[in-house]
């Protein structure tokens, strides 16, 4: 047991896995390697209200003191560059070589690049705290911000930018914002809220060209419209970071392919979080890759258990949230598994759409409302989804029927 547990990627997933190994009383060496200069930290605040403060701060998952107390060795600002599977070692960009008994790849995902010429220094992406600080400096009253892509990160940033008084235009090539994974009924509410807050949303028109002249960015749409901005933020999705795994010959399938126990095609190498694709038990083993914070936490903890030999299969239901202005959206499950929906109104404009499969199974629930209005019922829906329950549509739709009572059934 000389090599111990080595974790590559000190993000949400890697950080949680390291802590979990110690919570499980593992006594051997635990080493966490990350290429960012920071402690492991939470990314969700980077696009939300925290961005609107004068001096955004890192929300660390564990302090230096906790890492020291738990004897977790955190090597930062260094990249893992090669895995030698036969020797059970990983080489780092500073030339050092680390041994492992079990290796966890928690390398996350990285923003999808806009495949276009003409991008320059005023065309940016958001993934890291450093990215967030650079963007924050541009979010000033009257500054013109173009957001390319009407997905969650772009829309959350639009809300933060409005709060700081910037002029915001969102450009989405699809016919509506949030095409992926969000029902139209809910996307419409988010759209209308942005418009009411003064955001200009342009949907259904692709980008013909972009020109960053070093001072401003001119975006020309296929339909001829031009948007001139002081900063363009590109948020068109993310791609898994798989280079290290691919070069080591591990199987890649929309992410590092792992089994239900998060083990890659090499039994001593695990992968978890945004970088992996895995079979989702609740949908009969459909292979998915999630980009979700709770999933990164849960898989980090599960990988830790399985690195120690627990042999436990992943069983969680996907869950995601987003905050924009005073609205919170929460989604449990994957709505594309459903073929019909039932709406439940919760008052104050809050509602949940339940997505049912043809055989009557509840497969997903999407809710939106002020504050945390939908939280409880989404959580109960998540448990029903996990049980593959087939609740009566009338019961789901009626406020008089408590969802908790369906769970007991």
């Amino acid at each position, binding site marked *: 047991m000389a090599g111990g547990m080595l974790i590559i990627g000190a993000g949400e997933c890697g950080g949680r896995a390291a802590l979990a190994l110690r919570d499980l009383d593992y006594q051997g060496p635990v080493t966490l390697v990350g290429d960012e200069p920071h402690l492991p930290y939470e990314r969700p605040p980077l696009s939300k209200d925290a961005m609107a403060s004068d001096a955004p701060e890192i929300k660390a998952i564990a302090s230096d003191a906790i890492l020291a107390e738990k004897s977790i060795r955190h090597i930062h600002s260094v990249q893992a560059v090669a895995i030698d599977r036969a020797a059970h070692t990983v080489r780092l960009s500073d030339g050092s070589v680390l041994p492992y008994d079990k290796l966890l790849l928690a390398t996350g995902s990285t923003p999808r690049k806009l495949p276009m010429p003409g991008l320059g220094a005023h065309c940016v992406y958001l993934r890291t705290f450093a990215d967030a600080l650079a963007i924050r400096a541009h979010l000033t009253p009257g500054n013109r911000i173009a957001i390319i892509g009407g997905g969650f990160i772009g829309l959350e940033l639009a809300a933060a930018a409005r709060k700081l008084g910037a002029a915001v235009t969102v450009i989405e090539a699809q016919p509506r914002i949030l095409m992926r994974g969000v029902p139209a009924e809910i996307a419409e509410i988010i759209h209308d809220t942005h418009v009411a807050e003064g955001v200009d949303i342009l949907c259904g028109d692709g980008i013909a060209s972009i020109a960053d002249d070093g001072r401003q960015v001119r975006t020309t749409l296929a339909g001829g419209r031009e948007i001139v901005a002081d900063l363009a933020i590109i948020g068109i999705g993310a791609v898994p970071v798989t280079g290290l795994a691919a070069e080591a010959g591990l199987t890649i399938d929309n992410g590092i392919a792992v089994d239900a126990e998060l083990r890659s095609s090499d039994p001593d190498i695990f992968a978890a979080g945004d970088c992996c694709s895995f079979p989702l038990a609740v949908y009969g083993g459909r292979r998915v890759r999630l980009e979700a914070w*709770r999933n990164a936490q849960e898989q980090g*903890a599960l990988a830790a258990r399985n690195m120690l030999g627990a042999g436990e299969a992943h069983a969680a239901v996907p869950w995601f949230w987003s905050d924009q202005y005073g609205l919170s959206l929460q989604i449990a499950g994957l709505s594309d598994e459903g073929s019909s929906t039932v709406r439940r109104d919760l008052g104050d404009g809050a509602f949940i759409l339940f997505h049912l499969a043809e055989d009557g199974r509840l497969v997903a629930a999407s809710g939106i409302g002020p504050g*945390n209005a939908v939280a*409880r019922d989404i*959580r109960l829906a998540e448990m029903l989804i996990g049980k593959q329950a087939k609740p009566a549509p009338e019961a789901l739709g009626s406020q008089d029927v408590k969802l908790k009572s369906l769970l007991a059934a």
Partner: protein
Amino acid sequence: MSDWVEACATGDIDEEDVMRFDHGGRTFAIYRSPDDEFFATDGLCTHEKVHLADGLVMDDIIECPKHNGRFNYKTGDARGAPVCVNLKTYPVKVDAGKVLIRIG
């Protein structure tokens, strides 16, 4: 200082549920367990100061509505990511159908 304060009537909270109670500029969460006992904790999650009373009570766990952080509301113990700081708890007694908490 350590006065008993009336928070609500016993009938105001369902079994296995939670209610928010504000007093003296502070906010608390009052719980009724599945076996009909009452408990009280600080009202805000230790992760991002969200009102726990919007969360879900299952057995002796309160789950935060924002990111599903979990606490044992009887002891205040944080039960896993993303919460790591325990909740403060307060003594509770029931008197003539009223739920009283002692705010120290």
